[in-house]
């Protein structure tokens, strides 16, 4: 275990984090707010980063180091990301700050704040900006902007990019990261422009664009996107949510004019079908509540997009919707967005592989000698990949159940305990009942909040980097 090199990489990431804190500092200065929380945070993060990045280290870097680095970097990044919140004095405990920061970086969007609008603009900007950085990933950003450290950088980005298989767009990792961030920035700015044209204030446009881009869900309004009560804003955000939950490779294929391959993507079709199907089901279910076809469709469509992409914005308090709609949304939380997107959840491609291997298993029981392969996009999925998908799904459920078990110590109802665990692991944000779209997570005990923060990181990194970090064999010498 080459811990020194891991710490050196961590140091560099912290330097990037401290640099990114300059943006909210600027916002705070523009609005004439107290810049001290940011100055302190920048100083601490930069000092720590500098100290670690000058460590002398050997260049030995293997999968083990890669996984440990990713796990450690995310945990430390979230920890230091909580500093501005802590120094601002609006939070009652450091655990709350940590929860908020983890929720930001992992693009969950769950909050312990009951009155968001009371916070200064600079702090809210940082809160949403963490979504934007965490969405595409801090390590992907690092490989895009930092010169290579001579280490195998794909070990880092691989663990951070969601999906069952990791593939590059172009041969060079640094260039792949640059292309990804290029597309990401362009789409974000496009959304800011659209929202501004739809009548949203510029500051709010940025906040919501960050929330959408990272599929996070922090808003600067207490009742989220519902506060604008504008059809245009709802639709712009819903459409961009869908755009950000697609695999970014799709945009690269479009840019390189390979339209045929885009049409052949099973995952894309499955995702769009799931959105359409869930919208229809919920529309039918909630029609009696609104008795207006356009309104019904508007709320149903927005909520389906918001949940399947694991964003967590809301335009209406859907806790008043019937149970059936709740369960459709819960299923969408499990499913999540496409692989290679900024969204969370199990990812559509994994669900597809899971369903196809279930079908294969059934065929196999009926025809014990049958031999079938699982395919995706017309290509054979490796048996090892199928295996890892099945293991992943199993782990996913186990993590949710164990987290729910610990949270249940707080003695809330089953819906609350379970949905809060699920919403954290899937990086969605709102859950059911007390933690629903209108509620928040303030009432939980510090232990539950810590467990949930950890769950968010576990969910964002797709479980294994964190499990590796806590595995004893990782730290053994031999």
């Amino acid at each position, binding site marked *: 275990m080459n811990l020194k090199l891991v710490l050196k990489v961590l140091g560099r990431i912290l330097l990037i984090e401290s640099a990114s804190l300059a943006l909210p500092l600027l916002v705070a200065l523009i609005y004439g707010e107290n810049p001290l929380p940011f100055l302190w945070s920048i100083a601490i993060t930069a000092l720590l980063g500098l100290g670690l990045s000058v460590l002398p280290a050997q260049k030995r870097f293997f*999968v083990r180091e890669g996984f440990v680095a990713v796990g450690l970097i995310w945990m430390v990044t979230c920890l230091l990301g909580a500093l501005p919140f802590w120094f601002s004095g609006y939070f009652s405990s450091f655990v709350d700050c940590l929860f908020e920061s983890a929720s930001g970086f992992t693009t969950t969007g769950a909050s312990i704040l009951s009155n968001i609008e009371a916070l200064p603009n600079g702090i809210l900007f940082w809160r949403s900006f963490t979504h934007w950085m965490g969405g595409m990933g801090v390590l992907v950003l690092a490989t895009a902007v930092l010169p290579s450290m001579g280490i*195998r950088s794909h070990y880092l980005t691989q663990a951070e990019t969601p999906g069952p298989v990791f593939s*590059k767009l172009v*041969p060079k*990792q640094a260039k792949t990261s640059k292309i990804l961030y290029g597309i990401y920035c362009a789409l974000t700015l496009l959304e800011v422009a659209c929202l501004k044209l739809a009548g949203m204030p510029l500051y709010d446009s940025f906040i919501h664009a960050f929330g959408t881009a990272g599929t996070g869900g922090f808003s600067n309004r207490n009742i989220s996107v519902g506060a604008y009560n504008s059809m245009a804003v709802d639709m712009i955000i819903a459409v961009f949510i869908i755009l950000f939950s697609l695999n970014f490779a799709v945009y690269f294929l479009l840019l390189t004019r390979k339209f045929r391959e885009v049409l052949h993507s099973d995952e894309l079709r499955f995702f769009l079908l799931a959105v359409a199907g869930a919208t229809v089901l919920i529309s039918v279910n909630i029609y009696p509540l609104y008795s207006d076809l356009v309104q019904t469709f508007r709320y149903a469509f927005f909520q389906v997009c918001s949940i399947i992409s694991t964003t967590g914005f809301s335009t209406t308090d859907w806790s008043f919707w019937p149970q059936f709609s709740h369960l459709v949304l819960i299923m969408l939380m499990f499913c999540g967005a496409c692989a290679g997107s900024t969204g969370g959840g199990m990812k559509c491609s994994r669900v597809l592989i899971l369903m196809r291997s279930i079908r294969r298993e059934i065929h196999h029981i009926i025809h014990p000698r049958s031999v079938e392969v699982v395919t995706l996009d017309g290509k054979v999925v490796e048996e090892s990949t199928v295996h890892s998908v099945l293991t992943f799904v199993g782990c996913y459920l186990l993590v949710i159940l164990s987290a729910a078990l610990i949270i249940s110590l707080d003695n809330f109802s089953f819906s609350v305990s379970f949905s809060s665990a699920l919403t954290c692991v899937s990086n969605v944000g709102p859950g059911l009942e007390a933690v629903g779209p209108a509620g928040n997570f303030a009432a939980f005990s510090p232990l539950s909040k810590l467990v949930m923060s950890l769950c968010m990181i576990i969910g964002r990194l797709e479980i294994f980097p964190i499990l590796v970090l806590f595995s004893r064999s990782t730290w053994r010498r031999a």
Partner: protein
Amino acid sequence: MKIVIVGNGKVGFFLAGQMVREAHDVTVVDVREDALRRAADMLDIMVIRGNGVSTDILREAGADGADLLVATTNSDEVNMVCCLIAKNLGTGYTIARIRNPEYTASLAELRQNLKIDMVINPESATAVEISRLLRFPSAANIETFCRGRVELMGFRLQEGDFLVGKPLRTLSTQVKKLSLLFCAAERDGHVSIPNGSFVPQVDDKLYLIGRPNSLDQFFRVLGRYAPKIKQVLVVGGGKVSNYLLHLLDKTDMRIKLVELSEERCRQLHQVYPRVMTICGDGTDQELLESENLSASDAFVALTDQDEDNLIISLYAMQKGLSKIITKCNRQNYAGIARSVGLDSVISPKFITASHILHRVRGMQNSQGSVMNSLHRIADGGAEAMEFTVSPSTRHLGVALKDLRLKSGILIAVIVRGQEIIIPEGSSALCPDDIVIIISRDSGILDLNDIYVEETPAPVSGGGVQ
């Protein structure tokens, strides 16, 4: 450059690694998932699973816009078809590995009809290398430049050599007047470029560059001038042996070949009636003994098994043979073998990759100084490159002592017309000169890359002059 490599075997993987180090965009295509995973884990490349003869796969790999495609699968036919398809898709340059001797005869037509720009045959290239070593037995390995007018040789110092323990600048005038230069030294796996104060020690491997006859004289002075090799014992009758026999058939060496398969022995004897073919297990010491191994001048181990080759070579070394050539495909074994004293360890993979790399670098130099050839010496720890100086080369006509070169770079030889110059401080480069550069790092692609910019200060040239 955008490079597509089809076939991720030993050569493909090694090539991909080298090309990534030289900052090319590399895409590797193979049908084996595990091989691809290993490559993707270790190198910054893109991997695509599929058959290289499929147009879709090649297009996915970006062959339509690639500058170079190297086909190194284990099937000659796949390699050929792959190059043909890639060329039609629009790949700039195609290299195919073709190893079946049956194709060798019609290679010219094949190349033309299938639009293959370069054909590389690892076994044949290896045989060429071995025959060169057999013809110049003094050296552990030899590279030639300028069509054989300059040679680079490596040899290992032994106890009692007059070089040992004295700085190079104190060498006798008898050595100094020879036109040669100590251009690299390898000690404990570390390669350095020696200067006048370098003190050679026993077991160092020194590399000399110069005129062939000067090198010959040097070895005579050193008392290591090995007499010409007359009797060679070759173990293993595979493809390399076939090519080697073909090359040696024209010389006056007597060759004894030991091969396990009787069928193969018959075939070889039919083609090369002068060769004494012995059917038997070449790893059997008794057989080697009965064939009078110790009376041979040279021993060549060419079986399919690296381990067998190494062990019987060690046995031959124990029997006191002075020239032992060992084929060893695994790079990690080669290092161990050298450390126990087997100097001439050659790897077909390494040779193939060097040939291709040399061509790739040559292609990059569409402008600027043209690299004519590249040789990797000292286990890949240093490179010897031959450039032609063009008018666009910087600092033409400036005395070498006034130039500031990057560290680890040596201008070893300047060839001007018929003249071969071992440069001194006052020498200068002129257009149309051919220069041979020794570099400790890979990545010198242009003659202009050797200069440190802006801070002119004298450079200390080293060696014997």
